[in-house]
């Protein structure tokens, strides 16, 4: 596990506002158009809320979405 609450590139540090705990790296499942992939992302250890960073959403995740759409 990486440092709790540390975002990609280390520039932001988010904590769950509801549970008042820092985010920790954990296993999540991302899915699109019937395809599922396991991934390690920051999430709230208490309520499970998963952070998708801007860099991930507009970078690798977007590329993967487009590749799956063209499959």
């Amino acid at each position, binding site marked *: 596990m990486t440092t709790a609450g540390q975002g990609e590139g280390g520039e932001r*540090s988010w*904590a769950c506002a509801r549970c008042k705990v820092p985010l920790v790296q*954990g296993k999540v*499942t991302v899915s*699109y158009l019937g395809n599922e992939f396991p991934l390690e992302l920051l999430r709230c250890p208490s309520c499970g809320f998963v952070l998708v960073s801007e860099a991930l*959403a*507009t970078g690798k995740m977007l590329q993967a*979405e487009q590749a799956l*759409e063209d*499959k």
Partner: protein
Amino acid sequence: MDPRSVREREAQCTQESPPACTAACPVHVDARALVDKVQKGDLAGGLSLLARHVPFPQIVARLCPHPCEPVCKRGEVGEPVRIGALERACAEHGGPAPPRVRQPRKRKRAAVVGGGLSGLAAAAELAVRGYPVEVLEAGPALLPRLRGLSAKVLPAEAIEADLSALDRLEVVVRCGVRVGDPGAPTVDDLAERFDAVYLAVGPGPARGLSAALALAGDGRIEIDPLTCATSHPKVFAGGSHRQAPAAWSSIASLQDGVRAAVSIDRLLQGASLTARREGEGPLESRLYVSTKGFAPSRAVAPADPSRGYDREEAVREAGRCLPCQCLECVKVCEYLAHYKSYPRRYIREIYNNDTILMGAHLANRMVNSCTLCGLCAAVCPEKLPMGEVCLEARQSMVAKGKMPPSTHEFALQDMAFSLGPGFALARPPPGADSCATLFFPGCQLSGSSPDQVAEVYARLRAQLPGGVGLFLGCCGAPARWAGREEAFRGVLCSLEEAWERLGRPVIVTACSSCHKVLREGLPQVPVEPLWTRLAPPPPPGPGARRRSLAIHDPCTTRGDVAVQEAVRRLLAQAGVDVVELNERGLETCCGFGGLVRFANPEVAGKMVRRRAGESAADYVTYCATCRDSFAREGKRALHLLDLLVGTDQADPAARPDPGLSRRRENRARLKRRLLREVWGEPAGEEGASVELEVSPEVLAVLERRMILVEDVRKVVEHAERTGQKLEDPATGHFLAAHRPVEVTYWVEYSRTDRGVVVHNAYSHRMQVAAQ
């Protein structure tokens, strides 16, 4: 997609058709490529290209009557390229031609009677194809006719160079053997001993050669012009024997030899002699080549005409060759240029994309990047409509569930909003059950200039008899462009129901896309453009200054001269001198058509920038989307309504694009305003539950990512209601996510006394769940 219509459309594109010079050549020498080699100073390359089609390049380069030259397109602007002289330069300065490679030796054998150009061409071609060949020549040496020519025309070295190539192919030559003479074999003997025979016996009658050969009245052998076949199944004939003596041509003789060799090869392989041979021999080129814009030029004159071109002169002359290709559509369309090819190939790629079962659909984005504007067909000499190809492909993708969901989602949701309670309205004027006229402003004008829509509606009610109703909604164009034909038909169907309910009024459209869609989709409904119904503006005062504006006719008015003329009349009455941007019929798209702005913003941007750069003048148009597309690129542009009904803007040509969020809000506000003002209904402004502060910089990010302020509001509301959000203690910012549709929106915001400040937003389509 129907494979037959795909093939037919591929055939419509002439870009891959040989140019005029190649088509006119009896053996289809690739003269364009040869001249290209010479242009680059590669005369050896030119010679080897010639040798690929011509068995005796040294001889033919000097003797060919070059039927390529009279049809050379350069002749339309100056003198034709001297292709014959360039071939000679290749032969003289290009070194020896590379030897031809012989295919593995075959068992079946052929005999050739006559050692002239035609006979030897057949012998060489058959030898290259692997057949052992024996040539019988009556005279003491091969090529007797050519040996009589002057050395200036055809030096002996040229003959020997070409004949040595024949040696390398191991062709057996027997000179001094006259077929049918005592002691020599007869044609029947040859037909017995060999598997096929080619008779190239020269001009004059051929009586007594064989009883099995049918002869014409003049005693010459009857020869099938397509195959060089005779009445004897194993015997072929051609060359000068079937030419008028005065019309002898080296290239025609050679062509017969090649043609007969093809026939003999087919005979010996058991293939059809006649199938698919229509492409052989001289043809008229189908390739369209525009010579517009090329300065005329005269052919380079060699310093010593008797010696022909030297190397440098040849390079200069070759430099006059025009780029003989069509590409008419590619020249005018940024989309077709973007993918760096041409329709014939695009159609094949699109068809393969449509029928591929496994693997990535690589042409999806290409299919969705056409604006469907029809300009390609308008400039195509064969009227090939790439837009129809792309639209059919989109419909097929939708039917197969292969349309990428993200491509058109924003546009389709926008359409759904316009068809929903937030905007849609179909009403007769207050106090009436029906109306003679129904104003149809369209969703884009309503989103861009709601005040002008309200003003126009008021004027039409005052001007037109019989009552003027209002239709707020969508014509269904986004669904059609997205390939969603069923949804499109659904929109038209409910539109028709409303039209019936309102007493079948004349629909007056303010958007040329709506106009086209309604006219084509609902032919029974009378539709007229606003520009023929709206009263002209009052004439400008005596001292008023006329202004000059360049007119951009929306691409959807292509062919609709009546509306284009009506608009010009209105502009003239408004004191505008119109600058024409294009020839009528060649209207270009602003990049919005076909939903390209959503599917491929890069291509859409190229289109609008190209159009915007065509004149320094301010533009005037009569499509809100076109105007706003120009505005987005910083091009000053007016909507016709800015001139006809006015605007509250001090400089309306500089009005920025309202953007996606504002368009949506404007539509909703317009409906509420008209309900209040026209029908007196209590439709107050909806108070937002959360006040959002969005800076222009953040708004630009939202626009680029196609996230509406409304989407942002939903995220913040959801976060504040549920408490589900992240917090950055260092900045006090919150980060929250919400997935109201098939998209998850993330918003970074902070709370202040005034409300919520939005710092950033992004989205993704993947669903994420903790394990």
